[in-house]
Structure formats: structure tokens, C-alpha cells
């Protein structure tokens, strides 16, 4: 059977759920009560079949005001997640979130994989672009949002550019060669290069 197929605008990955999916799904079930999100980077490659492990799952989230952040933080703690940066929402907010520094959550008594929350706002042009142009992906009954594939590929090739990233990009280019769009590459490339060149 094929590795993936389309259901309308949703890319369906034709596989069973893994323990990594269960972790991400659990985290998202809590997160979406408080915020919108976009899963980026390694998890996109792994969810689509790259045979490699990961220490973290990167999630873009619009930056919070303190009260809303506290509600999310407590909800995550009540659902057995712990935050690397601290146990007190007020401190984590003032030391990290306020300055848009990333924070990480893992399941109780676990270190990896962790969920790395990357805060964004409109000043982060490339991240804001991918956040506002989500692609839906589904594995069994688990649906989640990722960047446009063309953006994910180019970001790995042009910005991250490590061996692992180049391999991830190649995997995505080949697996999804039937649905990638040239005009979308152009649009995403412009956004990424504008930010990369500091314009």
C-alpha cells in the first residue's frame, strides 16, 4: 500500500501510531484548549517516515500574556507534564516566556523526547508565515498541523542545513514529489530568504 494519500486538503500518512505520536497528541490535547499551534521541524520528517529518533518536538505557539500562560502551565502540570525551566508558572513566565525564550516540557519522570515550545509573534516573519499557512496531516485519528511542505523543505536546506536537515529535506522532496508545488516553493523561498538576509 502507498505511504500516504490525500483526503481533501489533508495528507494522510498510512501507518500505525507510535509512542512518539501518543506523546505529541496528549500534549496537543492540552495545548489547544489554550492556544493555536504549529508542529515544525524533526517531527514532520519522522511523522512521514524518516527512520531516526529525536530528543524534542518543536511547536510554534503565539506568545502569551501572563494569565493565559499560567492556565496552560497548570493544565500541563495537572496532566503529568513537567517543565524543564521550573515548577512555578510566574517564574517561568518572567524568566523565559516574556522574552520569548523557548521552554520545554516532558512527561513526569522522563527527559526525552520533550516538547519544545517556541514562542512567536508577527516580528518573526518566517515563523509567522508558516504558522499562518498550516498544512493538515493525519495518522489514523490523530490530526495535527504542520508548515507547508515546501516551506519545511527549504527551511531545512537553506537555514538549518546540517546533515540531518539535508537528509530530512531530501526525504520530504522524494516522498511528496507528486504534490509539491513549484509556485509554493517560490513563495516560501522568498519569505525565508528575506528573513535570512535580515531584510
Amino acid at each position, binding site marked *: 500500500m502507498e505511504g500516504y494519500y490525500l483526503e481533501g486538503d489533508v495528507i494522510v500518512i498510512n501507518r*500505525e501510531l*507510535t509512542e512518539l505520536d501518543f506523546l505529541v497528541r496528549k500534549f496537543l490535547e492540552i495545548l489547544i484548549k489554550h492556544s493555536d499551534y504549529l508542529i515544525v521541524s524533526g517531527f514532520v520528517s519522522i511523522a512521514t*517516515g524518516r527512520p531516526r*529518533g529525536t530528543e524534542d518536538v518543536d511547536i510554534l505557539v503565539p506568545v502569551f500574556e501572563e494569565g493565559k500562560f499560567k492556565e496552560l502551565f497548570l493544565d500541563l502540570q495537572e496532566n503529568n507534564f513537567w517543565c524543564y*525551566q521550573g515548577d512555578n508558572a510566574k517564574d517561568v513566565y518572567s524568566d523565559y516566556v516574556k522574552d520569548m525564550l523557548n521552554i520545554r516540557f516532558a512527561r513526569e519522570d522522563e527527559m*526525552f523526547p520533550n516538547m519544545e515550545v517556541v514562542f512567536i509573534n508577527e516580528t518573526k516573519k518566517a515563523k509567522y508565515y508558516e504558522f499562518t499557512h498550516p498544512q493538515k496531516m493525519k495518522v489514523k485519528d490523530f490530526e495535527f498541523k504542520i508548515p507547508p511542505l515546501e516551506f519545511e523543505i527549504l527551511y531545512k536546506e537553506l537555514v538549518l542545513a546540517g*546533515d540531518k536537515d539535508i537528509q530530512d529535506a*531530501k526525504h520530504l522532496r522524494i516522498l511528496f514529489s507528486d504534490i509539491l508545488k513549484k509556485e509554493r516553493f517560490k513563495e516560501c523561498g522568498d519569505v525565508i530568504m528575506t528573513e535570512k538576509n535580515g531584510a
Partner: protein
Amino acid sequence: MVPKTNLDYVEMYSKKLKTDNRLFSQQKSLIESQIKISQSFFLNSFGENFKVKAREYLRKRGLI
């Protein structure tokens, strides 16, 4: 195609995956074994006071 480089292997695997989703079962085994090993390693290493010891470890790695 005879794969020679890492990228050649990626290409071969990804092409195969387009039409043969049985490769996902191997990937699932790999991912889950890594998660299990990690869980076991850190729980055994840190035991009680997990978070305190974990944060010490993370500081040493420059992650917090």
C-alpha cells in the same frame, strides 16, 4: 541505483516508502525502542528527586 552516500540511502528508502508502507513498521520499532531506552536510562539514573537531578543534568548540558 547502488547507494553509496547517506543521501543515496535516504533517496532509496523514501522512494520505496511512496509505494510500500510496510517500511513504517520498522520505523515504529526503531522510534519506540529509542524512547524505551531513554525512559529506562534516565529513570534509573535519577530515580527519586527526578526533576532536581534532571535539571542539574540539563544545566550541565546548557539546555536550561
